């Protein structure tokens, strides 16, 4: 690991100044579970590590049944699923927060970090997409907001410009008769990178017989986590049935454009996309009915 300096700004403004001064030669530390390993393995190099955990906004965690959920970018997973009210309102998000690394990783790793790491297989990103998450970014030109589905641009790359960093994530309050679900496929039962991950959120009609709307996102099958708009739209207005769900699963599979690597062949990943999408939509429907 090459040497670097370390700073702990206590305000968003101070952090922006530090990051702007160093440009590409600075990086942001929240939980560090990706960053520290990447620096150690020389997959990244930096002159300055800016630890943002002393900034109040980055540690905020609040939920309001009317306005929704705000998660500071450095809030570790355990705090999110440890909040009973939040866990009950966003079970689809909890599915992912509970399987990022082992328990020790979840003591540090944040959803914000998972998003900024921009791995195609980042587990929390598909559920954040299907829950219509929005990222608040601070930078030299003030703050701006970007939909989570537009945040990642390539493996390890995001919309963040030099001097910018992620402050928080916001999710609208869950609607009535809605449910969300995330599952990934891995060869082991824990401690693995998704071969494929699928998130789905659905809103059902009052009698729960048909879909009002749905959003589906897939991980590890494209250079970035993939929002498959057409798969969700195919469900909207349709009856809740095996047939309609299979159609959505086919659309998700068709949208997937995976590579073959040591975690699975492209063919296997496409197959799994279909299987998991079906199971995940079924899981989301089940939750919407509960």
């Amino acid at each position, binding site marked *: 690991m*090459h040497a670097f300096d370390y700073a702990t700004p206590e305000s968003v403004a101070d952090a922006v100044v530090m990051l702007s001064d160093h440009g590409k030669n600075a990086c942001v530390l929240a939980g560090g579970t990706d960053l520290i390993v990447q620096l150690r393995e020389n997959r990244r190099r930096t002159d300055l590590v800016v630890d943002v955990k002393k900034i109040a906004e980055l540690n905020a965690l609040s939920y309001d049944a009317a306005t929704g959920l705000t998660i500071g970018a450095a809030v570790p997973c355990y705090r999110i699923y440890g909040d009973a009210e939040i866990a009950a309102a966003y079970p689809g998000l909890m599915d992912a927060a509970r399987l990022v690394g082992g328990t020790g990783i979840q003591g540090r790793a944040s959803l914000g970090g998972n998003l900024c790491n921009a791995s195609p297989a980042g587990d929390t990103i598909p559920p954040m997409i299907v829950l219509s998450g929005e990222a608040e970014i601070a930078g030299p030109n003030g703050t701006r907001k970007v939909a989570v589905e537009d945040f990642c641009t390539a493996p390890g790359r995001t919309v963040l410009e030099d001097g910018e960093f992620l402050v928080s994530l916001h999710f609208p309050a869950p609607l009535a008769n809605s449910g969300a679900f995330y599952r990934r496929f891995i060869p082991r039962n*824990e401690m693995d990178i998704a071969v494929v991950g699928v998130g789905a959120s659905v809103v059902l009609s009052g009698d729960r017989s048909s879909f009002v709307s749905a959003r589906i996102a897939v991980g590890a099958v494209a250079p970035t986590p993939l929002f498959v708009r057409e798969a969700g739209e195919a469900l909207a207005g349709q009856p809740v049935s095996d047939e309609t769900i299979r159609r959505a699963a086919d659309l998700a599979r068709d949208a997937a454009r995976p590579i073959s690597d040591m975690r699975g062949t492209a063919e296997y990943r496409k197959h799994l996309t279909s*299987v998991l999408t079906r199971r995940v939509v079924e899981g989301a429907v089940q939750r919407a009915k509960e």
Partner: protein
Amino acid sequence: MSQNGHKVIGTRPIRHDGVDKVTGRAIYGADIQLTGLLHGTVKRSPHPHARIKNIDTSRAEAHPGVRAVVTAHDLPQIADKLADLGEAIVNLRDASNNVLAYGKVLYKGHAVAGVAAINLHVAQEAVELIDVEYEVLPHVTGVLEAMEDGAPILHEDMKTTSMGEETDKVSNIANHFQHKMGEPDDGFAEADVVIEREFTTQTVHQGYIETHNATALWNEEGQLTIWTSTQGAFSVRDQMAEILQMPVSKVKIVPLEIGGGFGGKISVYLDPVAALLSKKTGHPVKMTMTRDEVFEGTGPTPGSYLKVKMGATSDGRLTAATAYMAYEAGAYPGSPVGAGAGCIFTPYDIPNVQIDGYDVCVNKPKTNAYRAPGATNAAYATETVVDEISEKLGVDPLEFRVKNGAKEGTRRADGPVHPRIGCIETTEAALNSEHYRSSLAKSANGKVRGRGVASGYWFNFNGGRSAISVSINPDGTINMLEGSTDIGGSRASIAMQLAETIGLEATDIKPYVVDTDSIGYTDVTGGSRTTFGTGYAAHATGQALIREMKERASKLWDVPADAIDFEDGVFSYRDDAEKRGSFKEMASQAGDAGGPVVAQVSTNPDGSGGGAFATHVVDVEVDRETGKVDILRYTAVQDAGTAIHPSYVEGQMQGGVVQGIGWGLNEEYIYNDDGSMTNASFLDYRMPTTLDLPMIETIIVEVPNESHPYGVRGVGEVPIVPPPAALANAIYDATGVRLRDLPMSPPRVQKALAENGG
């Protein structure tokens, strides 16, 4: 009192080194701190096969904080020489070249230089400043490809040895051997059912959690001391003496606690490099590997190709078997194909057998021992073919194994005749187990379920040199020094055998694993030999102590020594009931009659005791859509001879099973076209976690080993042998599809099911 009239053997005392280990105080190899310590690391090859044109260390040497750089040119040049390192015969020239590459690099991760610096980070920076000029050569990583004419050749001077004679042919095949017994053609002609199948297995790693380490101090007098975690301190001493061409008297190895080995911590990797760096700097130098270095730079166990053919009559008698076994040796000759050949059909009594083994060099790390080396690959083939034959004959697969089971007098294809063994007893215990008798629903949760069984054999090294040195304290407790590394509780199992012999409690013995200057030569903790071999020495030590104590009692009581009996822990004079005393009582006085009581014993038993057999039963659930296999229930049955400390016998069985499960389902070295391992991390190598397993049930069978005073059989290795085959048979039972390639990972299973409509 435990069974068989034993007081200590068969009980479950808390291990002597336990408190230190649960409180974090035990000192493992990497935990040592020394004054003036420097930190070292290794520069490794990025290519799987290349000629080293030049190594320029000048930029590294100029880097602030760097104290020394070494390359193969700092090592003495060694001629071809074979040496026995405890679990394998090794060519010392190859061993030297594996430590620091000379002339060529033969695998990605091959060490080319070492650096010592004021801290590890500086050493790592310096590694990037070593400039190595390579001429990249074509590489080959698969065993069958490496055997083809025209394959890239690793060793231009290596001629194939065939059936014991060197040929003129230069190839990657280091050795071809054959074992033959009876006439297989005639045997197959008698058979009503003949099955022939091909199998492949991939390279897998032992996966010990502690990475390799070595700390060396080469002092001003030329005395070299190495602190390290090793399975055999004396083996390290001998390797150091040979590789560095120095007298063994100049080398002392201090074994610190070891964090797992499984066969992989016998060969030296860092130790000679640390020694050279210490010699150059005059400081102690500590080197530890990173996890990716362990995967890419140490010895895993080989990938292999096997073709097995077996025949049986319609009344269920095996008549003939043949095997073609090609194992990857890695960069230098010496795969465990020979051991695999000795195990492949050994659970069975088969009159006609032919086994052809091939040891093949490929551009991968030099393979090393891994728990029953060679046997798991072999059993994967045999045990699935046996399952298929049983099915064809319509007989229960365990009853088939009982009917054809090896027993006392059965001859192994590689020569030896079995003494009293527990093969059939073990299979019968599995057959009668509650698990095997229970019913299994064929489907649940939208998934299919199945049950599989498999057996396995491992020789056990029923011999080897062990030394024990004891001194009796005035309170009757005993300090026991031994040379056997304790990897999994052997301090306890050895101390218990001494305690049993002299009528003390296990806690009265204080066992210490000591350095090579402080105890007689002791072979490696490997080959499942330690509780057998060093326990054998402990028993002999106990006998020596009893003799000595009789002498002391004779002086104290003024009676003839040969009139003193020792029974149930009490010395007594035959002719006077007043003259009696327990071992402890006598120990408190013994010092007055001739000074402190001490004893030193070394042993090297003949090794005829017979090996260990195991039979396993597993229930699995298969997700047809994803190909994922989950384990619902697992029972391991094994002949332990006599279980000294049953908890640690169970632990060996459970640990071996889970390594076998990992090998069967997910573990493998995945190579890309560039000859690089792509999954050299615990994240992607996928060893089983807590969440991948149920409890592992154990049934210990005890058919005593006739060549050990307490009947001990080694237990450590055989439990890894059956799992992959048992899993394959269970997957077949669940899905109707047979898998013949390891690992049976989700993509492979899903593909096989899709292709076979299973």
